């Protein structure tokens, strides 16, 4: 009976943890090279990993990045917030005879896609995760002042 209760607790914890991790969706990164021995990389990472990683960056490394990162954090946060209010749409499209670049909002995230004769690169980042990550960094910088 005790084992059953422990198992129930574990299941509930795993379920809650899973729900928390997936609530912001997943970051997708895909790289496909068209040559014969080309690289094919497809990464799917829970978007919540961004803010969590930002929270646990060691203080020493944070100090090193502060000068470069801090001035842009409010802008990144606001851009993510404003983009979140918009419907799915295309922001940039560049088309030439060899390349095709698209930056658009799709399904609550920012999608960047580059198609050329050599490769196809696709990155999708949930905007909520971008907002949360920037907010965590801002909070850490302001606490360390």
């Amino acid at each position: 009976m005790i084992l059953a209760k422990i198992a129930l607790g574990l299941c509930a914890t795993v379920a809650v943890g899973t729900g928390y991790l997936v609530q912001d969706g997943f970051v997708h990164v895909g790289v496909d090279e068209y040559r014969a021995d080309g690289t094919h990389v497809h990464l799917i990472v829970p978007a919540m990993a961004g803010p969590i990683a930002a929270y646990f960056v060691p203080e020493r490394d944070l100090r090193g990045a502060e000068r470069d990162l801090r001035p842009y954090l409010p802008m990144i946060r606001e851009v993510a917030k404003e983009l979140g209010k918009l419907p799915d749409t295309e922001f940039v499209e560049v088309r030439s005879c060899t390349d095709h670049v698209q930056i658009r909002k799709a399904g609550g995230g920012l999608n960047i896609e580059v198609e050329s004769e050599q490769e196809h690169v696709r990155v999708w980042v949930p905007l909520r995760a971008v907002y949360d990550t920037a907010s965590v960094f801002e909070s850490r910088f302001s606490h360390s002042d």
Partner: protein
Amino acid sequence: MNTHTRRLSFGLVASIMLLAGLTVTSVRAQNTQGSKEERWLHVRVDCSDSKGDTVHVNVPVELAVAVLGNVNHENLHNGHISVGHADLNGTDLRAMLKAVRDARDGEFVTVNSRDTDVRVAKQGGYLLVHAINRHENKGEQNVEVRVPLTVVDALLAPGNDELDLVGAIRALAASGDTELVSVKDRNNTVHVWLDSKSSGA
């Protein structure tokens, strides 16, 4: 509690937790959807040469305001750009633009030469610039720029040493659907315009 009931409990709790997580995600996503009408700045470049390159850029005005309003770098702070050290060759830009704004509609500058024609005029609340450049190899290039005078006012509002970029963009957004820049030559066309559509088709 028998094994079957325990398994059922595990499944039920796990399902409820996952459902709760997904519901929170869904509600948060719905809350971020805006309902007010957006204004969009569009840039479209089309090259009609053999390469056929095209560039389409669609930027929501509020996004531009959010970006510019939050940049604090060098001369740009909170949407204001400092021009205190700008060399205008002794020209009082503010007085000049005020004179243009207060003047009646009409043509202020007309230059006609073999290579270039330039016309600067004020008409219906807009400052209009029309230039034609003639190149021996590239043919004729036609440039038209329309700037609402309310944008100029907003730009110059803060004071002598600053330009209010955010204010100018807001004034631009309030000026209705309008074509701002048009450039045409033998191989390329460039359009910059403002409307309420998210796509620049």
